[in-house]
């Protein structure tokens, strides 16, 4: 879709962050514990995939 994302920059930005830090960066209102745990405990997810899941949640639409 004619977009370029600097994932290296993104990776550097977020590599030392905990999962809770990531939630705080992207979501001002956190989803239910069940949803949080489903992402947090999925060991197959890379950091990039984890971030994508977070910003695809309905809560990302809240300011």
């Amino acid at each position, binding site marked *: 879709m*004619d*977009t370029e994302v600097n994932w290296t920059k993104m990776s550097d*930005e977020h590599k030392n962050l905990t999962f809770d830090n990531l939630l*705080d960066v992207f979501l001002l*209102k956190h989803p239910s514990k069940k949803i949080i745990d489903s992402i947090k405990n999925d060991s197959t997810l890379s950091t990039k995939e984890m971030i*994508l899941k977070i910003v695809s949640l309905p809560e990302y639409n*809240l*300011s």
Partner: protein
Amino acid sequence: MSNTPLNHIFHLFSRLGFGITYSEAKLLSQKSLNEIVSSLFVTSISAQPLTNIKLNDIPLAKDNMSGGLNKKDLQKLITAKSIELNISWIKKLLSTESVLLEKQTLFWHNHFACRIRNPYLMQELNNIHRKFAFGSFRDMLVEVSKSPAMILYLNNQQNKKEHPNENFAREVMELFTLGRGNYTEQDIKEAARAFTGWSCDKAQGKFEFKAKQHDNGTKQLFNRNGNFGGEDVINMLISNKQTAYFITKKIYKYYVNETVNEERVKQLADYYYQNQYNTGALIKKIVSSSWFYDAENCGCNIKSPIDYLIGLSKQFSVNYTNYKVFIQLQRALGMILFSPPNVAGWPGGKAFIDNSTLLLRMKLPSVILNNGELEVPERIDDPDDVGKDDISINKKNGYRS
């Protein structure tokens, strides 16, 4: 030890900007909240106008008839320039450090909603919103009322002594100052007479007062009698505390919470009134209050499509190789800059969310961030919006509609 909690910074930049990265927030957390708020204002203090569209870019219709463009080509040119104007603001939103200026310009863009098929005049109205973003609301109201875009949109060029047109007089009270229910039909009729002769010179893109069309008779409005002109009416509207309440409530809903705390809004409205409608002072007072950071005010408002798109793009440093994608995204999400649905603007909040837009919002991150394709449902909007003609462009770029 940090001086400002990170969650306060995330909240502040979500409301007064378009989000912030973790490293930026971490750096700022060493400063006090006052320092952070001040720096937001300092970076936004000087208005940066939009300048892409020039007065002569759009020939006047009478010029076209004398050998210029035919009607169809003129319409194409207007659409192309409208898209250019839209994208010029998008680029500014994405790149500027003056995030608060852009945020407040967006507020006035919606408050003084206007849509005419002249991108130069639309740009100049936007530049008024920028110039007075944090200044006197009274001065801005005068400038907006004299802007050719608003005069043409609300038909005030047809407001003449013999045939008064009440459109502008009605909207200036209902939507720009007092709010519905705070004036009478008689007030509108008499105010319309006061605004007779307020017209514009389209060739110069300037306000023009046509004295011969002005009604110099005695008017009676708001229980006063006199030979009032347009600025007299504006001064009466400004001197009415209801205007301070109306604007403050709207600003509160925009920056704080869609659910209004009446007592708090009344106090803020008094402050706004006492400070001669200084909008910057009002915003500073709001974001410097401890209640602004209360849990009930965080994560409670729905991002507008522009907030959503700009925030996502900035947070991920997205580079758009074809900015026309933005036109289609705005259209699909229900908010095209410079093309509000009507004079009342975008209703905002939950109105931005329906089944299709919510699904789209949840899909968009993975599409934008993975350079994927997306099928956007066609939305039935006004046929003259700037997104309509752009479908083929997006098809060409693998972005189907």
